[in-house]
């Protein structure tokens, strides 16, 4: 594999943790990733040497805080290849990023009967904000269906997009692992007159992404899935859109002037960052993308392709008859999230038994209930990989599953 995982593991202090006296095998990065020392140190360093509120103080440490905060914005912009640093709005998470679009652009531009096109593999974060608008003002949702091999079924994409105002779609499914080819979809949407929102929560951690290449209008990312801290994410949007959008939250920092009878807004992106921002978290986010850049996103991806192939093969070999995998088998079009059903054993029980061997996997609907209904399953078990996982972790998964089978055997 192209990453030196043994070395990478040393950067993640939590991997020294023992659970039930076993080494931690963390296979839930699609839910949230662990954090390297570089990220923890960046935040700690701020708090121990330069912490002050940003954008307002004249004194030295306030200036240092502000510069570090704005430098983090520039790092995130570079990571997703935004043309301008000011196109990055810091938010709490991808969910807030999408809601920000729904509240500001959405409530300005979407009216009764207007169409938003989603896919059946969306996460609740990219469904509920649109359902709220459907309830509130009668917008109409259309759903891109799935093929038998868990990819987007684009047979009727022309009809689906006809007259639509927005295509809101994930770049990678957190359940199926499926990678969607955004560029052509976005161009089709634009041709139909729709804007394009990309939920890159799963894509940004694992693929080299380029918001320009995608031809996207809005992109949501979330730091905690890409080695960054909790409490921070980003919305990228084309500057003209950000400038045209009304503000979202009102308060300090987002204003230019406030009088008793009105206010004027600040420049973008600050117009959308009301109140004291998540300062240390933004700086941690900056350190996370730097760490990923140092690994190289192409190597991150090829590592994941190899590890996913290895694991799919191992699951097949050892437990093929017991396990049904929900997601493409072609590793070229999927990420490292592997969802499956284990015959006769509920996902919850699988996860519980795996925990005995310190193997951490998720069980449930993965915040994608409409997809679960399409798949016809109530819950799946999901193992997912990241830069600190290796074949030994995949082996631990397979071994623990074999033990679970024995445990529950009648």
């Amino acid at each position: 594999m192209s990453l030196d995982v043994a070395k990478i593991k040393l950067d993640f202090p939590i991997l020294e943790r023992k659970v039930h006296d076993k080494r931690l095998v963390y296979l839930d990065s699609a839910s949230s990733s662990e954090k390297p020392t570089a990220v923890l140190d960046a935040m700690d360093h701020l708090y121990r040497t330069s912490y002050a509120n940003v954008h307002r103080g004249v004194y030295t440490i306030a200036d240092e805080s502000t510069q570090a905060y704005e430098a983090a914005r520039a790092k995130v912009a570079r990571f997703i290849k935004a043309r301008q640093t000011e196109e990055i709005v810091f938010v709490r998470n991808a969910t807030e990023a999408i809601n920000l679009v729904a509240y500001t652009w959405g409530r300005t531009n979407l009216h009764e009967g207007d169409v938003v096109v989603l896919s059946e593999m969306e996460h609740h974060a990219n469904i509920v904000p649109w359902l709220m608008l459907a309830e509130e003002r009668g917008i109409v949702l259309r759903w891109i269906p799935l093929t038998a091999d868990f990819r987007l079924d684009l047979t009727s994409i022309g009809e689906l997009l006809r007259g639509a105002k927005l295509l809101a779609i994930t770049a990678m499914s957190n359940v199926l692992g499926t990678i969607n080819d955004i560029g052509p979809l976005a161009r089709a949407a634009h041709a139909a007159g729709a804007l394009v929102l990309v939920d890159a929560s799963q894509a940004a951690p694992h693929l080299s992404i380029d918001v320009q290449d995608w031809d996207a209008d809005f992109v949501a990312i979330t730091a905690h899935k890409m080695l960054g801290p909790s409490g921070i994410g980003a919305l990228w949007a084309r500057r003209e859109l950000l400038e045209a959008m009304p503000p979202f939250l009102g308060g300090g920092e987002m204003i230019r002037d406030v009088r008793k009878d009105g206010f004027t807004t600040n420049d973008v992106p600050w117009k959308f960052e009301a109140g004291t921002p998540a300062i240390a978290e933004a700086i941690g986010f900056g350190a996370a993308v730097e760490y990923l850049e140092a690994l190289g996103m192409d190597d991150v991806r090829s590592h994941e392709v190899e590890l996913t192939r290895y694991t799919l093969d191992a699951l097949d070999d050892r437990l093929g008859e017991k396990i049904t995998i929900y997601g493409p088998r072609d590793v070229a079009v999927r990420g490292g999230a592997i969802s499956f059903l284990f015959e006769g054993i509920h996902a919850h029980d699988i996860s519980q038994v795996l925990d005995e061997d310190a193997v951490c996997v998720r069980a449930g609907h993965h915040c994608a209930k409409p997809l679960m209904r399409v798949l016809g399953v109530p819950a799946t078990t999901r193992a997912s990989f990241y830069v600190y996982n290796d074949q030994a972790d995949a082996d631990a998964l397979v071994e623990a599953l074999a033990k679970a089978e024995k445990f529950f055997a009648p």
Partner: protein
Amino acid sequence: MPGLEDLYREIILDHYRSPRNRGELPTPPAHKSEGFNPLCGDEVVLYLVVEGDKVVDVKIGGQGCSISQASTSMMSAAVKGKTLAEARQLISAFKALMSIHESKLEGESDGADLQAELDGVALGDLEALQGVVKFPVRIKCATLAWNTLQQGLDEVSVPS
């Protein structure tokens, strides 16, 4: 550190593999109620036939993890033939069994009140579920059936 054997006692796995009283009943005379755990998708379907003050028949359905399904099965066996009052006492006792640990954690109670609920109630097989309290995330699995029972009893007591 609690082990798997605390959670998955043999009797639990037995109820999971061979659930008692599985099936459906015509409504009416049966009353049907449904419980749902949104976090994991577990479902309990419960048919109760109450005559006078007695639960004369019970059937269960639904799907979910071993704990929720075993708890449902055990519950069905425990309430069948009981009076409504006894059934409600069982609910309290079972919830007490489940929450002693929780409330101690939060330092809100020393568990004495909860112990009182348990005194004098024969839980039988259900005691096997006590191991669940060492796995706080699974408590909801165990209580789902009982919340559904409570809901069912409330509904049959208020003739609709």
